[in-house]
């Protein structure tokens, strides 16, 4: 068998196994699998194996990408139309979009943002308010992205003077301020009660509440948002990858390494930084709009500091700077709590323990960006 065919088949098999794992693994099987993964991560040899496996996939990037896209499109069928898991994976993809956005801040120019959930909230509320006023989904999403872009620009203005842990605190404060304002500005946001009845997305007479009828198979209504999120995620990945490849990406690397040096070569650093932070924040608008319409209900509890940390954790665990790793990290971290549900009250405890163990054994993430092995942070 030719190698590309092997790559495609193994990726598709991976998606099928993933679907099987999500739906069927419970109790002891799940515990064994999780234990095996933890032990595997702790063993140094696995790092080498991961790198080799990835190198093989990277040898045929087009085949691998195509297989990933096909696998993701077929995933609802692999999941046997299980609405619950399709929904969980949609949310996971929304988190992945946020992680891609945060990666622009953290990975590309090294700004620690502890308030990304605040931007997410701004996007979600902006989109919801416009949508309730009767605007179509695409317009609400664009509006949310524009609002987040502007808000991010304002944060970017703060980043000019403050850097490192100081910027982290500014963003932490920003996240808390946004949450407090949502709670207190009840005339606009309904406060702690949250906004209900966010209208469904409709396009060409098809509503997101209706099942997709393909003739031979009838996909559950959750599939609508699954595909919508898939499109948004693919778009985000393409955009972020494109920015990494063109001169902007080179400037990001240069800026991260030596801000004074790059300014000597004529880059307007403050302007560039503001635009970069704004660009990274735009993804929060997209994610927020998708999230609000997918759940149909938003409240301040969805945008806590915990959520900011979750996004940050997915960027770091996935591998800072590596878009593929960041996406995988976000999906793992948002699916894991669902799979850990059998732990009941100990779920968050295990989540924290998992985070600490992974960080201690894999400080550079599960799939580190190979370009960065030669960089100091």
């Amino acid at each position, binding site marked *: 068998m030719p190698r590309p065919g092997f790559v495609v088949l193994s990726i598709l098999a991976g998606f099928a196994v993933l679907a099987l794992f999500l739906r069927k693994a419970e109790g002891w099987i799940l515990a064994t699998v999780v234990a095996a993964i933890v032990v595997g991560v702790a063993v140094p040899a696995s790092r080498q194996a991961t790198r080799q496996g990835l190198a093989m996939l990277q040898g045929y990037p087009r085949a691998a990408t195509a297989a990933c896209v096909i696998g993701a499109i077929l995933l609802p069928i692999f999941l046997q139309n299980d609405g619950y898991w399709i929904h969980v994976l949609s949310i996971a993809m929304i988190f992945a979009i946020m992680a891609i956005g945060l990666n622009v801040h953290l990975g590309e120019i090294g700004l620690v943002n502890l308030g990304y959930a605040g931007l997410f909230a701004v996007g979600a509320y902006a989109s919801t308010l416009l949508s309730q006023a009767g605007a179509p989904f695409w317009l609400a999403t664009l509006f949310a992205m524009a609002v987040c872009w502007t808000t991010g620009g304002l944060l970017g203005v703060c980043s000019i003077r403050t850097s490192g842990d100081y910027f982290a*605190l500014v963003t932490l404060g920003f996240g808390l301020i946004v949450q*407090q304002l949502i709670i207190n500005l009840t005339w606009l946001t309904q406060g702690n009660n949250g906004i209900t009845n966010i209208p469904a997305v409709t396009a060409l007479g098809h509503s997101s509440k209706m099942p997709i009828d393909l003739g031979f198979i009838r996909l559950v209504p959750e599939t609508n948002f699954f595909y919508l999120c898939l499109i948004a995620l693919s778009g985000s990945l393409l955009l972020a990858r494109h920015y990494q490849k063109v001169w902007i990406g080179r400037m990001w690397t240069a800026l991260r390494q030596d*801000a004074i040096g790059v300014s000597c070569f004529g880059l307007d*650093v403050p302007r560039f930084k503001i635009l970069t932070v704004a660009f990274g924040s735009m993804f929060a608008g997209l994610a927020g709009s998708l999230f609000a319409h997918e759940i149909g209900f938003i409240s301040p509890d969805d945008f806590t500091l915990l959520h900011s940390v979750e996004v940050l954790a997915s960027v770091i665990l996935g591998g800072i700077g590596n878009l593929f790793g960041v996406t995988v990290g976000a999906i793992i971290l948002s699916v894991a709590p669902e799979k850990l549900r059998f732990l009941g*009250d100990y779920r968050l*405890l295990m*989540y924290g323990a998992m985070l*600490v163990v992974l960080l*201690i054994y894999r*400080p550079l993430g599960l799939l580190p960006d190979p370009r960065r092995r030669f960089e100091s942070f």
Partner: protein
Amino acid sequence: MDLILQHLVNALALSAVYALVAIGISLFFGVIGIVNLAHGDIATVGVFASLAVFQFLLSGGAMDITTLSAGMVIATLAALAAGLAVAAISGVLFYRVAFYPLRAAPPIIGLLCSVGVGFIIRESILNFYPNGRNPQPFPSIIPPELIEVGGVIIQYKHIFVIGTAVVVMFALAYCVERTRFGRAMRSILNNREVAQSLGVSTFKVTVALFAMGSALAGLAGLMNALYYNLVQSDMGTLLTVKGFTAAVIGGLGNIYGALLGAVLVGLIEAVTAGFIPDGSAYKDVAVFGVLIAILIARPNGLMGRLSAERV
């Protein structure tokens, strides 16, 4: 005028608690370069250890022990000592398990790791402490009487909290400025490599610092518990956020800056809650608004070193 003074007293009591947390965060950052976001949770551990000792010694008796008796005094001292000791030990353990292996990794990894540790502490208390899901009453060992000085009502607990903090601050200033340990610590703050090459054991100093800083956090937690007479598993989050804010306003790595920052945070909270109509809902907004303004004007905090890097 009386109202202003009254708010000032309340603000100072808050500031005292924040200052003790801020000092730990500030010094840890100075020495290991990591922002410890589990610092408030370490305080929670100390508070709950103390509560456990109280509950064991009083074994379900009345939790109101303002009447003086030898047994009560011993119980109180034992409980407070247990709280400080457990906080110190858990701080050291935390450094050894979570931060020490990450000393070569980028600082953001350590920050995230401390978030994970905070998770573990909060959830452990929720799940393993008896009735940990609900807020628990903390015994009130300070008499609830009031003193009125020129129209300002001062409670004994105000005096206790502010007094303790002042005494501790002086002890700490002495420790940092005059003792061998303080000199070693300042040398590491100043230049880690040079300190190491001159024979300062960074590991020992850091462990000692974590013991001291965590005990201070435990003290802050206890003061918070005595002030409100109510403890719960997530009380640490608030302490961390406010302590971190105070430390940053003053300039990370500087204990006097942390003190100044804590006083400012307490004042801003009290002023917003007291003088702006409907302001108590917006007091955090005010604190962080001021914080952002200060950081834009002085990027390294009020008392931080001015950096040459300005882009």
